[in-house]
């Protein structure tokens, strides 16, 4: 298949259109503004609706309205904007509406920086808004994956009636890479017979709502949601392992750091050191069982978690999976500073020493 050179954010927008996105509601924020820009130019031509909202809060509520009325709806933003969308996301999760949300992450906290970051891991994987809910979180580490995941995200969202987030650091949104438009897996989807499209001949009114005043009813609703999340944990976990079969040290990383880690792996393997890479692709559900299995292997002596975050966030899920069996070192930077190959090499060597 022919390769085409695409910028990450524009490729994401085009992928959404190809996946049948009916409407896009967004607000400008660096480094994701190319998504609404591309959508404004191309989505209406494809028969869809583009609207620049007055705020991220409004954009996510427009998504709520359109998704509730049966549309394939999408929004995108970057970290501070995603914070503003959290109100809408919890309502969308509570009302069980499918939609796709892209977070082209930058560094924080607050205004932070417009440079790439991974400081929104907690926010993406722990719900982010109020209440007990989860969004399914796909994390690409290159533009090709971003394109594939965005297309799949619409189907996953429709299948579970749940928001799906595509979370990537700003580097992937801003970078140009060759990609191909190959077909992505399609799913058999249930009809949206719950959507508010006007009652017409239906014998009942459809109501989109997240309010349950009766405690028992609210409890049951939460149980139902929990069952759905358990199903996603069972069916949707994705990860990638590289050279973990004999690895003594395993680097855990996602997004851009996982890509940098590939070079570190080459360097270390060339020196005869046994190093592997474990890359979660779904940040939620986290590939806990696979990582736990590796942590139990005798050949694995230690882990090195690498993130674009000063404190580390995914490291908590790594810890929950490793359960103290092996030491875990942390290497991270914030503010758009990339962890380097040299730093990873040093961290792995230090971990090897510690693990022995």
């Amino acid at each position, binding site marked *: 298949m022919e390769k085409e050179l695409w910028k990450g954010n524009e490729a994401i927008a085009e992928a959404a259109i190809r996946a049948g996105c009916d409407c896009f509601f967004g607000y400008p924020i660096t480094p994701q503004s190319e998504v609404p820009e591309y959508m404004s130019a191309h989505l209406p031509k494809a028969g869809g609706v583009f609207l620049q909202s*007055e705020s991220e809060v409004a954009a996510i*509520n427009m998504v709520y309205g359109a998704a509730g009325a049966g549309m394939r709806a999408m929004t995108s933003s970057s970290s501070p904007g995603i914070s503003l969308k959290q*109100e809408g996301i919890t309502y969308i999760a509570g009302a069980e509406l499918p939609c796709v949300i892209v977070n082209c992450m930058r560094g924080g906290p607050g205004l932070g920086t417009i440079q790439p970051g991974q400081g929104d891991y907690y926010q993406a994987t722990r719900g982010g808004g109020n209440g007990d809910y989860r969004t399914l979180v796909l994390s690409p580490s290159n533009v090709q994956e971003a394109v594939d995941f965005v297309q799949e995200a619409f189907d996953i969202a429709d299948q579970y009636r749940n928001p799906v987030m595509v979370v990537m650091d700003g580097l992937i949104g801003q970078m140009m890479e060759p990609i191909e438009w190959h077909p992505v897996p399609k799913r058999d989807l249930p009809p949206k017979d719950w959507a*508010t499209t006007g009652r017409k001949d239906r014998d009942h009114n459809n*109501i989109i709502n997240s309010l349950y005043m009766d405690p028992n009813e609210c409890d049951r609703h939460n149980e139902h949601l929990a069952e759905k999340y358990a199903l996603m944990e069972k069916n949707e976990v994705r990860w990638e392992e590289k050279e973990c079969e004999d690895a003594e040290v395993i680097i855990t990383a996602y997004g851009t750091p996982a890509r940098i880690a590939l070079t570190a792996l080459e360097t270390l393997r060339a020196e005869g050191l046994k190093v592997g890479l474990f890359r979660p692709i779904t940040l939620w559900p986290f590939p806990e069982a696979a990582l736990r299995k590796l942590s139990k292997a005798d050949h694995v002596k230690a882990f090195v978690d690498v993130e674009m975050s000063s404190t580390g966030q995914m490291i908590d899920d790594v810890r929950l999976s490793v359960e103290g069996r092996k030491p875990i070192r942390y290497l991270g930077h914030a503010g758009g500073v990339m962890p380097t190959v040299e730093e990873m090499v040093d961290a792995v060597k230090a971990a090897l020493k510690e693990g022995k």
Partner: protein
Amino acid sequence: MAIVYEKSRGLTDEELHYCPGCHHGIIHKLVAESLVELGLLDDAIGVCPVGCSVFAYKYFNCDMQEAAHGRAPAVATGIKRTHPHQAVFTYQGDGDLASIGAAEIVHAAMRGEKFTTIFVNNAIYGMTGGQMAPTTLIGQKATTCQTGRTKEQAGMPIRMAELLSTLEGCVYAERVCVTDIANINKAKKAIKKAFQKQMNGEGFTFIEVLSTCPTNWGMTPLKAVEWLKDNMVPYYPLGVIKETAPETAEVK
């Protein structure tokens, strides 16, 4: 025997939860009757707010969405933009629309979103127990201004119909009340006209309905009606605040 009056088909059989003397019930009825009489009910999609009318989705006999506090105009925008030929309306109170949702309503009006907003202004937060609203009158007591609202502390009350009328996209704004038969008839006419203008594709339409809250005003229902007439109407004048002639409005 001939049936001379019956409950509108636009309302469900659900029992209303509103307090005695509250005007929400009358306003619900007028919206429901308007939708039925215009033949819009079976195609309508309503959006209800957070506030006393949070359960309006149980009462209107059409498809409904429950929005987050203040966000109904954004939700309605998402619906109407993707369902341009269907009747879409929001039903919102003063805390919802004039306070937390001020940005959403202003921008929906600015864009000339082709839906109708029914704005119920009773000058107080009802559901949360009588706190000051942006529309609470000067001197009016509320649980968060216990000696009465002052201009110095909270500013002057906001007149939403006038404010939105400054925007080109708002083609029709009228303020009504439902304190007596004459006013109920005027309110019904205004609500119907708003829906008609919406369906003509003229632009954003806004009906502000002054309403009582006997419970949180601490009055009997009858006293509340008098208080509305004596205090609210002078500050919030009734009548058409803005009406753009259809021929000058951009019809798409």
